[in-house]
């Protein structure tokens, strides 16, 4: 009898391993191995001329690259982009969700329109805006008073804000959907009670609704920061990091260092830095989600 149970347990375990094998084979080859390898490659200095052997320099390459402007300037550009896009994206999404919250005839159409930009991709949005911002032919360039010259995407001051606007527009749909879901999770009774207590619309919104949906706001902020630091397509299609490196965000710098300059060592160090940054942000989100689950259980 015991032997039978034992046999069955082994059979179950064997089945379980068969079931998890495909996923873990892929994880091993395309997630865990390359992660360790990136860290390892960061310890080799690539010679300036091709053909020469790479030299093991250990962690010293980490300290030299991470304290150098070739890393710090892109890090700053990425940070600026996040500052330009994340708060504004949440505010716009929330505003749109609030405007579309009340049941009115035809609201379905407005909701579909408000979420429509999720049908676009980063590449679609970037190519559309690139063409509309063309200094000689673009309609947007014409409207903002650019005729000829380098255009807004070639302007050191305005290139990064312009990239941010493209990101913002492309994300409006997602932000709207997220905020709408949050708003519809706020019970009407609470808002009614606040109204009876004499709270006006704006007061009700900021004193009752916003605190109640703060978990979603926080989630949106973290997601926004994480995806902001992963910005690549907009840069490749709009500015190629220019003018003079003013939109050279971290991931674009990693790409050109690796792909264009073939400097695997330096690119790997920066990729590890990006990884650490994103892990810290993700952990922050996990800790917060855990706490929210705790809240939910307590209620």
């Amino acid at each position, binding site marked *: 009898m015991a032997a039978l149970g034992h046999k069955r347990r082994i059979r179950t375990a064997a089945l379980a391993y068969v079931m998890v094998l495909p996923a873990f084979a892929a994880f091993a080859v395309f997630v865990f191995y390359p992660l360790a390898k990136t860290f390892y490659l960061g310890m080799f200095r690539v010679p300036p001329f091709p053909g020469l052997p790479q030299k093991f320099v250990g962690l010293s390459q980490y300290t030299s690259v991470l304290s150098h402007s070739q890393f710090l300037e892109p890090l700053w550009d990425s940070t600026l982009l996040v500052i330009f896009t994340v708060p504004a994206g949440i505010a716009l999404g929330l505003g749109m969700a609030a405007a579309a919250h009340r049941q009115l005839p035809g609201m379905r159409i407005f909701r579909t*329109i408000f979420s429509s930009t999720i049908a676009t991709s*980063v590449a*679609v949005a970037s*190519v559309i805006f690139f063409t509309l911002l063309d200094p000689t032919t673009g309609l947007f360039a014409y409207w903002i008073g650019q005729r000829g010259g380098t255009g807004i995407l070639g302007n050191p001051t305005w290139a990064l804000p312009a990239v941010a606007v493209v990101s913002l527009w492309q994300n409006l749909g997602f932000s709207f959907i997220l905020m709408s879901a949050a708003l519809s999770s706020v019970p009407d009774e609470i808002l009614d009670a606040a109204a009876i207590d004499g709270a006006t619309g704006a007061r009700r919104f900021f004193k009752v609704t916003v605190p109640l949906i703060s978990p979603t706001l926080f989630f949106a902020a973290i997601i926004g920061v994480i995806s902001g630091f992963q910005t690549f397509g907009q840069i490749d299609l709009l500015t190629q990091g220019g003018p003079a490196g003013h939109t050279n965000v971290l991931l674009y710098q990693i790409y050109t260092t690796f792909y264009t300059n073939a400097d695997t060592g330096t690119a790997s160090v920066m990729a590890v830095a990006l990884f650490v940054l994103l892990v810290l942000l993700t952990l922050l989100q996990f800790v917060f989600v855990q706490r929210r689950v705790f809240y939910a259980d307590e209620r």
Partner: protein
Amino acid sequence: MPTSVRTALRYLVLVVIAVIVLFPIYITLVNALLPGQDIAKRPPTLFPLHPLWDSFSQAWTDGSLGPYLRTSAIVSIATTLAALATSILAAYAFAFLEFPLKRVLFALCLATLMVPAEVTIIPNYRTIQLFGWYDTYPALIVPFVASGIGIFLFRQSFRQLPRDLRDAAVLDGYGHWRFLGRVVLPLNRPMVGAFAIFAFLGSWNQYLWPLLVTNTNARRTVQVGLKQLEGLNADQQNIIFAGTILAALPIFVLLLLFQRQLVRGLTAGAVKG
């Protein structure tokens, strides 16, 4: 304020927002229908009185949108199906089976959520070269066949099934495969739909990876293909605009057809309840 004025104001706000959100899409459509040399005309044409539709066929053939869309469709569908299969299988094991190292393996699954694909491109690019997969479908598909978030979401969803169901299935002589196929999956159809949309969108919208591992029009996905289109002359901008519409159209149709699943997929885990 009387209610009718209030309602009118509400609609005004809604219409203003709608115009701002839609304008870039609208002007894209208008410009796609204009003759190329008319796009730069000032004052701008905001409504095409004599729409020309051949920019779309030109984008399809001369702009190679046809092959790009075909590649994107193949890659996205294959990636979605593979990610569904690997995630459902692994999630079943984590939800219903007992085996050594279960907790460790599940923790590793969650750990993959912290490793964005952007971070590992350098060794992965070399791996693709090593396998001889450069500029092939496997290069675009295989790195994404497993999904940590998929395993996590399906496991959560599977664990919510009542225990009695499993007991009843065992009494009926169901083995694990039959239980998975006849009970678990049919009851989790909404989750399958939501994750399928989520995976499809993620694959369809990829940019950096396809840019790295392809170099011919036959294997470029539509997102990377748009970059080739961007380089067209000023008097061919109608083709650029038509191309962006063709690239977005499949997702737009998907959005209209599966709005509910899409919302669920996009907001999975974001909002409680």
